[in-house]
């Protein structure tokens, strides 16, 4: 199909306006991604020229006990942390969607922790979870419950991290709130006429209507969870006994401290595969049980 001169000019201008972003994407995202794929087949310290070693990095990964440990820890945090955070943020959003006094103050208060810088929050939680003088254990002691070693005990360190991550549910809560506002009130009115109770309305109207939002939050949760780094780096450094050695921390150490950039690149590509599989499963699940307003998923 012939393209008119004016149209060609328009395309040119369009591309020109897009070019800062396109160049940025190419240089800072696409190139590093492609380069890291090549590096994953090389012995590359990050300093001198990479040397081709074929599949060695991948073979070595599967005999590295810390690799398995990092995958286990990351999946543990994701499988328990993400559903817990989603349920809690959805519940909070439902509460904050009701008509109570001082609603805007409550919304602000619940959202506030999620804008605390990650480093500050991690330092704060390190103190909160101190086994002897941290407020969490002092509270548990007051009500007569056992006081776990949290970040010092390998059995409790991951639950400790999950507790920390729940503190930042404000972000997804706000997205749920926006989603709740978009549900047409007629549906609830119709349900009222049919004599539906509160719980029935949540399961028959709210959740199905929110499913695209839930899908979005879950996918973002998976991505963030697989990439979590700051809180672990500051709170535990991966310890005790590697019980909080998460995947991103392991990649960072190999790439920047041990000068094993090739090995770390291989790890990053495996992370991509794991994340893709997880997101695929979630899409399949939502495709079957979610409601997308008649559009195909």
């Amino acid at each position, binding site marked *: 199909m012939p393209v008119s001169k004016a149209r060609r000019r328009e395309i040119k201008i369009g591309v020109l306006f897009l070019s800062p972003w396109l160049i940025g994407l190419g240089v800072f995202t696409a190139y590093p991604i492609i380069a890291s794929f090549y590096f994953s087949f090389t*012995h590359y*310290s*990050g*300093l*001198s020229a990479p040397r081709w*070693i074929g599949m060695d990095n991948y073979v*070595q990964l599967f005999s590295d006990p*810390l690799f398995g440990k990092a995958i286990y820890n990351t999946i543990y945090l994701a499988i328990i942390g993400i559903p817990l955070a989603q349920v809690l943020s959805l519940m909070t959003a439902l509460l904050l969607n009701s008509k109570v006094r001082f609603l805007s103050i409550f919304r602000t208060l619940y959202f506030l922790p999620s804008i605390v810088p990650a480093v500050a929050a991690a330092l704060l939680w390190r103190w909160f979870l*101190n*086994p*002897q*003088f941290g407020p969490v254990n002092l509270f548990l002691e007051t009500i007569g419950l056992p006081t776990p*070693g949290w*970040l*010092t*005990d*390998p059995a409790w360190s991951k639950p400790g991290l999950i507790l920390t991550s729940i503190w930042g549910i404000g972000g997804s809560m706000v997205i749920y709130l926006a989603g709740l506002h978009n549900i047409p009130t007629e549906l609830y009115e119709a349900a009222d006429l049919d004599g539906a109770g509160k719980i029935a309305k949540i399961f028959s109207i709210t959740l199905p209507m929110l499913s695209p939002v839930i899908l979005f939050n879950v996918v973002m949760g998976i991505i963030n969870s697989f990439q979590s780094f700051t809180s672990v780096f500051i709170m535990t450094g991966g*310890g*005790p*006994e*590697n019980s909080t050695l998460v995947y991103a921390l392991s990649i960072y*150490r190999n790439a*920047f*401290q*041990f*000068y*094993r950039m090739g090995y770390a690149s291989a790890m990053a590509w495996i992370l991509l595969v794991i994340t893709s599989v997880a997101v695929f499963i979630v899409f399949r699940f939502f495709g079957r049980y979610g409601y997308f307003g008649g559009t195909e998923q």
Partner: protein
Amino acid sequence: MKKRLFFVMGFVLVCVVVFSRTEITFWYAWGGDEGRALVDLVDEFNRGQNQILVRPVFVPIGQGEKINATLVGSSTPDVVTIWDWMVVPLGESGALRELNHFLDLAGITESDYLDGVWDYGSYRGKKFALPTTLNTYAFMWNKELFREFGLDPDHPPANTEELDRYAQLLFREDTRGNIRRLGFLPNISHIYFYVFGGQLWDSQTEEVTANHPNNIAAMDWIASYYQKFNLQKIRVFQATWGEMASSYNPFYRGQLAIQEAGQWELLFIQEFARPDFEYGVAPFPAPEGGREKVAYLNGSFWAIPTGSTAPDEAFAFLEWLTAPSQSARFAAALSNIPPRIEAINDPAFQNAILPNMEVYLDMLMDGYVYFFPTLPVGLFYMEELNQALQYVQSGAKTSEEALDDVQQAIQRELRKYQ
């Protein structure tokens, strides 16, 4: 008129050529008083000559990521401060200039340095950097607690057996089983490898010696502390310790009766402990047949990146900065140890020596000096040892199994560089 203008322009050009100074950039890594002491030295260098102008820029080393990225790029500083474990990986990759030629020309030789220091940061005879100052560790005990428990406050344990006994005696738990005081806890495992007569690297054969029999014996001994005093309880107790550079330091709060302490602790004690706090410093006690006066060196280095456009000027500055007089003053400001013998004897350092520093100096001059092998694999070896210690502490592996695994992992990693 034209002739005069020509003359003036010519004169200006000659002045610019004759009086212009080569500007070099120096990345230094100390803040506060230490940084100021270094910048004062740079100012002194700039005032003292008119060929080179050094521009100091404060760039903390951190984990080295930024410095690594800069040095492999094309626009680098002329002198950079890096950790000891970064020297060989950067040097071997071609990011740092070899200094052997410069050192030969300047007539700086091994004999100018303390014994064992020349090889520190070198690899296969290649010197890529010069040590800024040195840190080393000794055995430090709380004399007040010794007295309280009927021990002679002026006599530290003579050997590891006696140390075990003292540690048990000084240990305290509360009625609920929480640790209130640790007598002693071995922390930097490889110090005891050397104290027990082992080693990490054989520089003659260029072989890793992680599973040296004496290293295994030392690891067993270290693990015994974590078994005796309960690993989990120790961790909980350690989480209550305050910052080292504060009045909450567990050593002078009486939470830890005996500790491994770097010489900078002398400065901390002066600044943060009670003025009448009594403590002693001695070399690490050794088992029978072990090594006496083991001194573990660590610290930072100054290097000239390959990307420097003025390497001769950069070395001229480094030569001046590491010369005995300057080195003595800088080390005194940091409460560190200057690496050159002449600097140690310099009045600027001698007059600033803190009480008990003489023990550290004696260990360095008369003891068995070692440093963590500076290999192309960076921190990987150290991290593998940390992992090994964790496996042994938790009982997941025996010392022998754990150190055999370290041996294999490091050998495999080093082979990639050959």
